[in-house]
């Protein structure tokens, strides 16, 4: 599996010189399977840049196919869809697996962002590509790999984390996770267990999270606690607060490294444009 980070920021895109190094686009990660298939996780503004890169592949000719895993439908996880060039080319096919038990409700939510008041597209029906919306199952096969999902609390709502497994290797995407004050639950740890790479919500420094716990995001300390309890091999901190500068994120990465080194867990920060081979 080859993981690439296209958007690593939380809540709202954060342009400006102070976010140049880690990047200011919202959540989007691509996973190219060893077999050459494509899984996209979340559709934040990073998706536009992934889409531009995909135009040089079969997606540019209307012969592309990908699975999209959607953690939840907050704006910072869906805003890129209307700016994803491959959806404007007929012949491309996308299957979106997202939260909730009803694919119709999920499709209506995605439809809502294309409402004529908000988008010149007016409706999802004006996309040229085929976009098939489905309710994610606890476990399913897509693009030739096994995917398991876990529903978790995210403030007042729920979101999904995904575990992608191929040929004995595993990648877990756990963004927008709000744990109870006691820390990650056993069910969360079981979902992350022994992951080769655990990408985990690290929105806040602990002191900032203390006053914002109701928002349903993790601190980097909780991300590290989850990595240790799950015996993950590598932690990827992700979904940095929009107000954190590159220097502040450097501090988060250094703190994670210090916390995890005694446990033999490596740290690779999510940074726009970086790739990670599993």
């Amino acid at each position, binding site marked *: 599996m080859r993981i690439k980070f296209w958007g690593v*920021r939380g*809540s*709202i*895109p*954060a*342009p*400006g*010189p102070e*976010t*140049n190094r880690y*990047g*200011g*686009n919202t959540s989007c990660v691509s996973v190219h399977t060893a077999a050459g298939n494509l899984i996209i996780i979340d559709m934040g*503004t990073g998706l*536009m840049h992934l889409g*531009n890169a995909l135009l040089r592949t079969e997606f540019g000719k209307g012969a592309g196919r990908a699975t999209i895993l959607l953690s939840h*439908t*907050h*704006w910072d996880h*869906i*805003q*890129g869809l209307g*700016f994803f060039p491959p959806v404007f080319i007929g012949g491309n096919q996308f299957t979106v697996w997202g939260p909730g038990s009803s694919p119709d409700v999920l499709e209506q*939510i995605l439809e*809502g*962002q294309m*409402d*004529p*008041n*908000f*988008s*010149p*597209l*007016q*409706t999802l029906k*004006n996309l040229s590509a085929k976009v098939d919306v489905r309710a994610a199952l606890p476990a399913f096969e897509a693009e030739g790999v096994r995917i398991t999902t876990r529903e978790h609390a995210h*403030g*007042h*709502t729920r979101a999904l984390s995904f575990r992608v497994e191929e040929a004995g290797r595993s990648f877990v995407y756990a963004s927008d996770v709000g744990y109870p004050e006691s820390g990650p639950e056993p069910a969360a740890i079981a979902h992350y267990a022994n992951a080769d790479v655990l990408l985990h919500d690290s929105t806040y420094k602990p002191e900032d999270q203390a006053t914002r716990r109701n*928002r*349903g995001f993790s601190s980097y300390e909780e991300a590290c606690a989850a990595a240790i309890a799950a015996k993950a091999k590598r932690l990827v901190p992700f979904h940095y607060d*929009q107000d954190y500068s590159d220097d502040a994120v450097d501090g988060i990465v250094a703190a994670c490294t210090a916390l995890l080194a005694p446990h033999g867990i490596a740290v690779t920060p999510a940074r*726009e444009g970086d790739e990670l081979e599993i």
Partner: protein
Amino acid sequence: MKVRFWGVRGSIPVPGRATNRYGGNTSCVEVRPRAADPIIIDAGTGIRHLGKALMEGTFGDGRGKASILISHTHWDHVQGLPFFSPLYRAGNQVHIFARQRDMHLEAVFSQQHDAAYFPVPLSAMHADMHFHELVEGARFHIGKAHVTCARLNHPWVAIAYRVDVDGASVVYCSDTAPFTDMLLGRDFIERPSFGTLPPPVQSELAAMRAGVVALAKNADLLIYDTQFTPEEYQARPHWGHSRPDDAIEIAREAKVKQLCLFHHAPMRSDDDNDKILAAARELVSADKFTLVSAYEGLEIPLGDQ
């Protein structure tokens, strides 16, 4: 008054090194009359930073009052509103003005705060929010400032605003296509068309253009949508954006004193924007008005200070 640019980009925010100088935030312009409350035009992601700056003053104590004029509710013009800090402080007053729609404006703005999309509902904002629906040709006062508006040629319809205050005038004209090839409104238009238009459509476009020229008449500053290069416009006349040449024509006819290129395309790098500005300046070298290109942090003083 002072005019300050907090977001100058169209369509979608674009972080990254290539946009550091002009800025990657979407549309937001602050008009600050002398010793008076701010008038904000559009609530793209730039308004997040304006909000932080306002919280340093009376808005931080819940004693602030702001008016926000919305050109239209496409995402790049409203996305920042849920991140506008003064809304989270009780006592602040925020007045939102936008064109009347099929449903009430408050319902339109509530939709972007729907639980599916955003964690905090609009109804939970602590500030006192008021929604004002505008009809075409509306004229009204915000404090000592006089505001007028005109319809633009954009999908689902946008409006331009003129603010007259402190002996000066600023006109915000974004988003709009030129008034020559296609009439954009409620219908979804899938592809370009450049044929001869039926006479009623021609006259509607001519009236719209005359309205824009009248709105901009003798303005001290005209801020104009110039998202497209001529080549891009040829491919996408139905997207509802103009070229620098279109802005220059309107500026000439309206005899404005300064023209500002605005609503830069997302994939336009700073170097691209420099070239567009240099080329446009060549075109107006014999004209009486000055020409600038909007960048985040640009501040233009007008009239009485």
